[in-house]
């Protein structure tokens, strides 16, 4: 069998027709180009993107356990609008206690870091919609919206995120966050059927936030 596969590999290499090889080179180029063009077009620097990414991870990690390695932040052009596509595979949902603990921990951190600063909360800024793939019944959105309603510090945090989004909106094109369906769900998710989320959905749970 290994002889056969060796032969097969040699043959495919010889003809250079394996789709992965070609696909890799072409789609890598397309993806790199899309990202760099969006940075060019919007003046979004890699530093701002990284900051946005890490703040989003911080925020979402309080409610669900994420596969940070597979986090995917992309831009897509839809006509005149630029959409920010965020896709993060969810490993498992946290239970209420864990979420409360995470929020308390975050509050502590916030108190320390925001010491001296006035925290203002505005309702319009804390809008967050969380959406899931259609076939998944379990909703992250409920948990998250409920909790953030009862949590003012949480709003301050999303204000911070929104501030960045607003900053992005100052450039001519509108940036919005949209749901995107994870195409290749990581194996951990598939195998992790004991999680409190729907286990018959292999898709990672997607997170969407409305435009700022």
């Amino acid at each position, binding site marked *: 069998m290994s002889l056969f596969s060796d032969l*097969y590999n040699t043959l495919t290499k010889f003809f250079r*027709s394996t*789709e992965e090889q070609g696909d890799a*080179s072409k789609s890598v180029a397309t993806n*790199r*180009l899309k990202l760099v*063009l969006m940075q060019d*077009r919007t003046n979004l620097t890699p530093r701002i993107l990284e900051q946005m990414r890490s703040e989003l991870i911080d925020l979402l990690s309080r409610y669900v356990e994420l596969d940070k390695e597979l986090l995917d932040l992309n831009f897509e052009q839809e006509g005149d609008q630029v959409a920010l596509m965020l896709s993060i595979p969810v490993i498992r949902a946290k239970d209420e206690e864990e979420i409360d603990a995470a929020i308390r921990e975050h509050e502590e951190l916030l108190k320390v870091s925001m010491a001296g600063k006035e925290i203002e909360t505005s309702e319009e800024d804390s809008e967050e919609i969380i959406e899931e793939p259609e076939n998944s019944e379990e909703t992250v959105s409920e948990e998250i919206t409920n909790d953030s309603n009862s949590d003012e510090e949480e709003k301050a945090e999303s204000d911070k995120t929104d501030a960045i989004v607003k900053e992005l909106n100052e450039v001519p094109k509108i940036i919005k966050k949209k749901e995107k369906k994870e195409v290749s769900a990581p194996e951990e998710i598939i195998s992790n059927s004991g999680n409190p989320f729907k286990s018959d959905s292999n898709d990672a749970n997607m997170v969407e936030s409305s435009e700022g």
Partner: protein
Amino acid sequence: MTGRVIVITSGKGGVGKTTTSANIGTALAKSGHKVVLIDTDLGLRNLDLLLGLENRIVYTIVDVIEERCKLKQALVKDKKNPNLQLLAAAQTRDKTAVNADQLKEICDTLKEENDFVLVDCPAGIEQGFQNAVAGASEAVVVTTPEMSAIRDADRIIGLLNTKEEITSVKLLLNRVRPNLIKSNEMMSVDDVVGILEIPLVGIIPEDTGIITSTNKGEPIVNDENALAGKAYRNVAERILGEEVPFLDLDEPKGIMAKIKNAIAKLKVKV
């Protein structure tokens, strides 16, 4: 008569602006239109070489601007086609020898007596670019299916969109290699158009004939058999408002292609 002033630009160098200018200009002239080509690449002039007119240049655009000659004296007629004339760039000066207003004035004068004024733009987004686009109302952005060329084209498109006078910006995709696209090693026409989001005016296949035609100083549109020549003739027809389908660049399948397909199918089974 008021002709159309079209700037041929790209941002990146080496993607085929000058070749495109020479070929579209020649094709338009062949179809009976009066065409003037302006080389605005001061200090790095090449359009004369591609047209085989390098030995006939007496006056340049800088001579016109500095009033050492009349505009008409500086226009060099093509060897074969009197409909085609060239206004050469100065080789000994740099881009600062000309300003945008002066170039606009030249374009405005030339379009009075010609159907087309094609402005060959230098690479870059500085003074030379600003000069070249000053008199134009249309633009053809030349790019190749490579990341750096596309990125620069995107920048140029952004700059062109800020110019009110430019009412039409179209894409010419040059040096396309269908066999590489087929094996997914090169961005396809759809990929590039999807990214840049401007209408396509031409797809020019990579053609070794371009090298020999440059060597001879004769644009490839004069070669009836060359695929790139046909593609450029089609571009000229589209510029004239005709609906011409894009060339089918799929190469005929040879034995190797069949074997490759067979291997690909085998792979699925494995």
